[in-house]
């Protein structure tokens, strides 16, 4: 395999100048020097990209992902280090960057195609295809300033994918448009991959990175933290997020509701043996433990538990009543409650536990604590969706053995 892009020890320093006009510079002459604060957007990045590879750049906002793309694309020059590359390059750093609101869709297609490197003749040839792909035939002769943002993006992407680059730089543009259109875009990206083009893309959609990339690089404050498989990088990124969240947890008053007739405290997550855990392999058992303090005798009470993923989506939720358990009367003394899940076949990710104590039918909510405990599930498999399933494959009568690391041990090591 050939290296298509080589990034050699690239660093980029930005000067933050706050005064722009001559007047401001004269008035603030003394402060001008102080105003020229600088920060490192990238530090000592050293990467090579092989032809045909798809690499995802992940990291927080401001971690330097876009800056790195711009340096590869030649839009910014690095403060030190240099980039080498071969082959034609198209950078989709912003959809419709070349669009002019006063021009019609048709005129903009020609202009944008020229910006991305197509000749007029080639654009003529692709024009119908582009319009077809965008699906906005009826508005092609309308000025784009009258377009909805969805239409705008559709047309821009349609132009961009019809340029025929060997290297494609994509910055966070795949997350636009409605779902069918997104799927169309992803299909296009996959086709690019099959055609052996090199793709470098920035995304905040970690699932997208895992689906599309064969490699991922995690950047944090301009430093290159992880360069490895998407699973590794995404996991490291989630660790980073978790650390940040935990730091925040200390200060945040966890959203709590209820009459406080009963109070919940000491929420923790443990494995089946009762040892506190933060990380567990998918499929292992889990205990959610907490303390209830009813203050006085109470016989009408239920316990509700919900597990949410990092996107806030409830992946499981129920209460003891719904599940057919009626809880014994509380005497008034604090009591330890354990909700035990014999197995948690969730897909990889960070999950948060919310707990509520209420009267039957949720008529009175005594106490509800949201997202008070966090745990992480790890798997060794590439998969999509919320649950971790372990299918076997059979071709004809022949069962296909699984290659690589045995599932259990791989997950157990972490």
């Amino acid at each position: 395999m050939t290296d298509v892009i080589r990034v050699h020890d690239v660093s980029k320093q930005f000067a933050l100048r706050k005064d722009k006009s001559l007047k401001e510079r004269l008035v603030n002459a003394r402060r001008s020097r102080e105003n020229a604060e600088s920060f490192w957007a990238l530090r000592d990045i050293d990467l090579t990209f092989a032809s045909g590879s798809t690499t995802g750049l992940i990291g927080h906002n401001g971690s330097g992902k876009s800056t790195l793309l711009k340096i590869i694309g030649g839009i910014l020059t690095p403060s030190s280090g240099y980039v080498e590359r071969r082959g034609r390059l198209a950078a989709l750093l912003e959809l419709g960057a070349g669009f002019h609101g006063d021009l019609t869709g048709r005129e903009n297609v020609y202009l944008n195609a020229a910006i991305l490197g197509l000749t007029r003749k080639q654009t003529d040839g692709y024009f119908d295809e582009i319009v077809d792909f965008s699906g906005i035939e009826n508005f092609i002769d309308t000025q784009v300033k009258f377009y909805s943002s969805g239409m705008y993006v559709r047309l821009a992407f349609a132009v961009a994918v019809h340029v025929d680059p060997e290297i494609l730089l994509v910055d966070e543009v795949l997350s636009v448009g409605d779902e069918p259109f997104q799927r169309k875009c992803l299909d296009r990206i996959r086709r690019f991959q099959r055609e052996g083009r090199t793709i470098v893309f920035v995304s905040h959609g970690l699932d997208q990175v895992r689906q599309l990339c064969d490699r991922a690089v995690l950047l944090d404050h301009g430093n290159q933290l992880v360069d490895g498989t998407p699973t590794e990088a995404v996991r490291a990124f989630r660790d980073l997020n978790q650390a940040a969240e935990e730091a925040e947890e200390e200060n945040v008053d966890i959203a709590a509701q209820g009459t406080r007739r009963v109070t919940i405290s000491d929420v923790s997550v443990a494995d089946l043996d009762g040892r506190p855990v933060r990380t567990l392999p998918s499929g292992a058992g889990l205990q959610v433990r907490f303390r209830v303090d009813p203050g006085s005798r109470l016989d009408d009470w239920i316990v509700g538990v919900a597990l949410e993923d990092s996107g806030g989506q409830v992946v499981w939720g129920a209460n003891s009543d719904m599940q057919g358990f009626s809880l014994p009367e509380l005497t008034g003394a604090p009591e330890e409650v354990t909700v035990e899940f014999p197995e948690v076949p969730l897909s990889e990710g960070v999950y948060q536990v919310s707990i509520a104590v209420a009267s039957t039918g949720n008529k009175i909510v005594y106490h509800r604590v949201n997202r008070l405990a966090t745990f992480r599930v790890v798997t060794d498999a590439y998969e999509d969706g919320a649950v971790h399933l372990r299918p076997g494959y059979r071709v004809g009568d022949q069962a296909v053995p699984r290659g690589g690391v045995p599932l259990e041990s791989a997950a157990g090591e972490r």
Partner: protein
Amino acid sequence: MPHQQRGAASPAAPTRTIGPAVGAGEAPLEDQPLERVNQPVSFWRGFVPTVRDIWAYRELLGQLIRKELKVKYKDSVLGFVWTLLRPLLYLLVYAVAIGVFLGSGKVIPGFGIYLFTGLLAWTLFTDIIGGCTGSIVGNAGLVKKVYFPRELFPLSVVGAAMINVLLQAVILILAYLATWSFPSPANLPLIPLALVALLLFSVGLGLILAASNVFLRDVTHLVEVGLLLWFWMTPIVYDWTKVRTTLTVDNDLAWLFQVYLANPMANIVLAFQRALWPGGQTEAGAAFYYDGNLYVRLGVLIAAGLVFVWVAQRLFARSQGNFAQEL
């Protein structure tokens, strides 16, 4: 994830695009050399590669010029007529104020055409300078997101200005027909020379102004004021003999007159008047043709202009690495 070829159903054109990177050609990727992005070039040698680069992007330049022209008068009812109305209005104002009230019209034959030939050169100059100054800042969105030679922005302004001038020249031809007086063909070779000099000079200045405006927005306003001053330092609405009389006859300031004539725009405007204003062929008007050797003057200007463009481009190239982050 199941994925069907829905979006990609359209038959893929198997041809590989030859984009601006034509140099890379059709060779398989492995055979293409690794090229350093933004290769630092020495100050002395960077000009020729840039010109080659711009040539490779000529299609885009065409599109950008088209955009400039379309956007300027989009949504206006009169559209391109405005291109003609503006100089006509200037013409009217100067013809009345200076030709009639100040009496120049009685002295200079065909004063309207005299004014218009000068204004033609001047409009081209101001269109280029004014347009170039804002060209990088005005296209910030593109500068920050896409790479192509940044010189294309000022150059697209130049292209659009040239087309405008061609349209305005139609008025001149109509004026010839109306007055049935035509310029002498003997002087016409001055026009291409004057145009080349004007383009070189204004492109060079435009490049410098475009780049400096990125770092200091005051440049826009400076240019406005500067052009106003420059307009009156150029014999467009008055004739050059008045300046000569004032400086060399009334006062002993011949050197100042030479300084006045060193203004490139003065030479270009004088050449335009000589080539395009038929009034000078009459006995009354002959004095208003500039009597120096305009061919030599324009030749010197072109030579200096070439050097100037080279210097300007090198300065532009030096600063352009910082455009994207300054905008």
